[in-house]
């Protein structure tokens, strides 16, 4: 029998993104969950981590700058003028 080694708290912490995203193999997931059952600190850590994962991953509403249409018009005109004059500065 090939008994999987119980992961340490550090291994658990390192694997939590993979765990939440379903990237762990069944075997790794099961041993991680066995660790969580026996380790109250890691269980709370998982709860923290899950909240951070969701809050930082949530898209925020986007807004254009107020004068976006004017600015964009200026940018496009400036670009056309560069092209017409044939001296296009190198981008980056």
């Amino acid at each position: 029998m090939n008994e999987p080694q119980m992961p340490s708290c550090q291994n658990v912490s390192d694997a939590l993104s993979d765990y939440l995203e379903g990237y762990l193999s069944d075997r790794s997931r099961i041993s991680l969950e066995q660790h969580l059952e026996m380790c109250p600190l890691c269980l709370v850590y998982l709860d923290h981590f899950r909240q951070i994962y969701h809050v930082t991953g949530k898209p925020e509403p986007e807004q254009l700058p107020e004068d976006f249409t004017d600015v964009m018009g200026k940018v496009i005109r400036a670009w056309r003028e560069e092209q017409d004059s044939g001296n296009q500065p190198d981008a980056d």
Partner: protein
Amino acid sequence: MNAAHPDDLALAQQIGAGDEAAAATFFTNHGGELFGFARKMLSDVNAAEDVLQEAMLGVLRSIKKYDGRVSLRAWSFAILRHKVVDQIRKQSRDLLVSTADPELENYDNSGSWNANQSIEPWDKQAELLDIVRYCLEQLPHNQREALHLRAIEGMPALEVAEVLEMSYSNLRQTLHRGRQSVRRCTDQHMGADS
């Protein structure tokens, strides 16, 4: 021709041929998310507006080099990201990069939590969002830009990796360290009396 994004390539060729309306439509569709990223990275609205303007001009100037390998959206984000970095350097701010495990000192030699380590459930849920926003600003640059890009609606991780010019596995690691760092910072502020 074997572009992964043939529609974007066609659009770029249209813009490159001088179609101003096509350019305007593209920028109007993506200007908000580009601006949002710049604002989060620079935390100064005026600087973010300048950078957005420079990035739009940069996109137009190099539009003929676009080859459709990545989406035009990700390609534009990559140009913006370089402008953001230039701006941060202009302000003489450091671009701190970290790959370290933020919890390292909290483990003992066997990788278990230190005996004196306490991890308590968070009880100030109402303040969570503000604390997380603050903690995101404290992150090393590489983790901050990765987390902000990853949170953009409909931006797949593979595209984020392209924008950041890093491998997919490196991105996953960077995101994970970023989340760990935010958790740790949030925990410290949740515990603080206020």
